[in-house]
């Protein structure tokens, strides 16, 4: 269903033709290695680009232009895909047929994208100082705001400790200390390097002819002097951290996060089994963790597990009363032991498989989810297509789930709790 069109060396368009939506979307992503030194720089650049172009030199001119394009949106795109970090822009817009008669939206949108990428406001040959300064402040605030969401904060703190030697320990937006060091010159030089060297992935969902779009995009990318450099392959988890950690803060509810490792990644044959294990152990309202720790014992409101297939990391997080930490940890381990021992009912296995299958069936129901799933799969170099993955999940057996569970080892624990408790 996806048409892959090579635009230029190191630049690919993936188009998902779809007539049934009211909106289309187009994303452009430059691929970088996830690296402590440049993560904050990569996160900053799209925000600076969105501040103004030579033709539309401030936010208001940009927003008014988007208003004229029927409330189209352009946003910064900064993703972590395994060992890679992507930076770019995401555009959403109504399909031409919903505009007033004769109006066009898609092509003006591409013109505008080109303007944002290739004609930013400059000063002395580099990014405009005001834009860099204020977006730096915003980036640092966004990095620090993780602290406001205690669940995300605790998950991030655990990951930093678990992945001290792995790229997964670098937060998606980088660290505040690195952001502090950025100046207009360093941001500009880095951006030029990104434009020149980084592989480019463009993803489009909508009703336009992919070939026509490809021609326009080729023209745009042709204006950049490109010397693309390949990225290294994705790597499995590199051990270098671990331990048991406690942090005190003024909070009402404690957040417990456990990090587990497994050698199974999304590049392995056993990946579907590991996904099923994660679903039946901790994802959703019929999982073992939810049914036992919340429903049976009333020990929490939120509990769940997550599996990061690109690395082979599984996490469990729960919001609990700190006094119950021992009991909750014991149940988390005991329920994993049940999986290892094959104490898995037919209902649990079916529910887990169905949860994944339902999610896969619905991937193609909205432009945003198509872009999100397919572009990340392509960038992460996941070998299985949606259809192949679907069939593999359908075939996962209890024995395979047991085998996957036996590869899972507790690696790091972290708890955030009130100073008084």
């Amino acid at each position, binding site marked *: 269903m996806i048409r892959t069109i090579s635009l230029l060396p190191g630049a690919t368009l993936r188009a998902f033709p779809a007539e049934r939506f009211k909106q289309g979307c187009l994303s452009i992503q430059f691929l970088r290695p996830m690296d402590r030194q440049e993560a904050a720089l990569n996160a900053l650049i799209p925000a600076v680009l969105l501040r103004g172009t030579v033709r539309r030199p401030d936010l208001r001119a940009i927003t008014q232009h988007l*208003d004229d394009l029927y409330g189209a949106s352009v946003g910064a795109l900064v993703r972590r895909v395994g060992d890679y970090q992507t930076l770019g822009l995401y555009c959403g817009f109504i399909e031409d047929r919903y505009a007033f008669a004769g109006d066009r939206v898609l092509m003006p949108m591409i013109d505008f994208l080109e303007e944002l990428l290739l004609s930013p406001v400059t000063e002395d040959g580099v990014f405009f100082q005001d834009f860099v300064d204020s977006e730096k402040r915003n980036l640092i605030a966004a990095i620090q705001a993780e602290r406001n969401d*205690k669940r995300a904060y605790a998950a991030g703190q655990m990951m930093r400790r678990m992945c001290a030697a792995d790229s997964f320990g670098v937060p998606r937006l980088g660290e505040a200390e690195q952001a502090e060091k950025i100046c207009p010159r360093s941001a500009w030089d880095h951006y030029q390097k990104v434009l020149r060297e980084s592989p480019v992935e463009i993803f489009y969902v909508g009703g336009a002819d992919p070939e026509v779009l490809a021609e326009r995009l080729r023209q745009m990318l042709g204006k950049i002097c490109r010397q693309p450099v390949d990225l290294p392959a994705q790597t499995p988890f590199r051990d270098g951290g671990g331990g048991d950690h406690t942090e005190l803060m*003024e909070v009402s509810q404690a957040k417990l996060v456990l990090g587990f490792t497994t050698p199974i990644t999304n590049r392995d044959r056993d990946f579907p089994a590991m996904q099923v294990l994660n679903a039946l152990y901790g994802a959703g*309202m019929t999982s073992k963790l939810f049914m036992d720790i919340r429903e049976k014992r009333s020990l*929490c*409101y*939120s509990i769940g597990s997550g599996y990061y297939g690109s690395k082979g990391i599984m996490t469990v997080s729960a919001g609990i009363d700190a006094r119950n930490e021992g009991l909750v940890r014991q149940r988390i381990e005991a329920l994993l032991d049940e999986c290892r021992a094959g104490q898995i009912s037919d209902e649990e296995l079916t529910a887990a498989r169905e949860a994944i299958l339902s999610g896969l*069936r619905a991937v193609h*129901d*909205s432009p945003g989810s198509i872009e999100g799933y397919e572009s990340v799969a392509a960038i992460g170099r996941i070998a299985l297509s949606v259809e192949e993955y679907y069939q593999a999940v359908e075939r996962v057996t209890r024995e395979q789930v047991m085998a996957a569970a036996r590869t899972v080892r507790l690696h790091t624990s972290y708890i955030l709790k009130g100073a008084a408790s």
Partner: protein
Amino acid sequence: MIMTEYPRLGERVCRATLENGLDVLVVPRPGATKKLAYLVTDMGSIHRRFRLEGKEHTVPAGSAHYLEHKLFDLPDRDVTAQLAQLGASVNAFTSYDMTAYYFSCTEHFRECLDLLLEFVFTPYFTEETVEKERGIIGQEIDMNMDAPESVVFEQLMEMMYRGHEIRTPILGTAQTIGQICPESLILCHRAFYGPDNMVLCVVGDVDPAEVADLALSRTGREKRPVAEKLCPAPEEMTCPAAYKTRQMEVAMPTFQLGFKCEPIGKGPEAVRQELAADLAAEALFGESSALYLELYQQGLIDQSFGGGFESVDGCALLTCGGDSMDPAQVRDRILARAEELCREGLPEEELLRMKRSAMGRRIRDLDSFDSTCFRLCAYHLTGFDYFDFPAIYESLKAEDLLAFLGRVVRRERCSLSVIEPLGNKEEKHG
């Protein structure tokens, strides 16, 4: 069923009101794999006082939400597990003035819908199960107490209202949920969960007639009495408290600013007022406004800033908020800019641009099943067909927007709720 076409939106809706009063709305989406169903009652956390069969009742704060949790229990089996077997994911939420139960699935739609109807219309509460839920909801309340965005909004509601139930958090408090028992839950269910008080909305590639038939066979033909909501006296258009701050574990100050508005009632005129207020907010502090640019460039707001008009049964307010080093200055600048706008007027081309943008965004949102289902239900409960929004936008004039700003964006109608990072030891609890 009656089918209505909305050619401008490329949409169709099939509607029926069953003999028992249940309204059924189906939005066919041929070719889509996902199917989504919402079953909604117009009881929310604020509907604590009501008259049922001649008798007045007051239930503890947090009852609507507690009921939402407990309604998933059936006497003989676990309905969530059953839905999971069918590949459906089910959930629910409680807001100030409605409660919604919903599932999405890709297959076995009939069976899933049947289960949804069964559990929502089957109240089953025992001392033991109700007691067990207290620990879970207690943890949910604790989680909210650590979430600055909840705390700053709940504090704002307390500051703006004297008697309206919006002052009380949707979840209730540790103390009020302690008073909830099987009898009070049964009472709420009897009062507001009659088919006549509810709406079922489905989006997806389904047969509309089949949805209506199934709903009728599960809910019976009989109408049930619906409770009369007892509302507090209308409030004065001033706020009891102008400014309140509280300290929490946050990285930088965060605020919510509220302006008290007259309740808008129900029906198309109410929706016209709502969309006018929303556009007025856009003109005043939206991303394409002059003020937004100024505040952003001066570092007084960042991308977390946003706001709009909100209407809840019996009250309405204009809010905005986000992170800021100087929330009081943001408030003052908004007040000053509103005056200026009212003096200078709004150019016609600017209004047109804003309308085009707002319409385009709403059309794009129709691709989202969840947003479409939610909006159809919420507007249906206020007596309005959501898909009529294009005509309303067209009828709006600059005077409508300015009249709203002139009346509402005033110092005496405004409260500013702020959360500051922990700094000194004297913590003031708002």
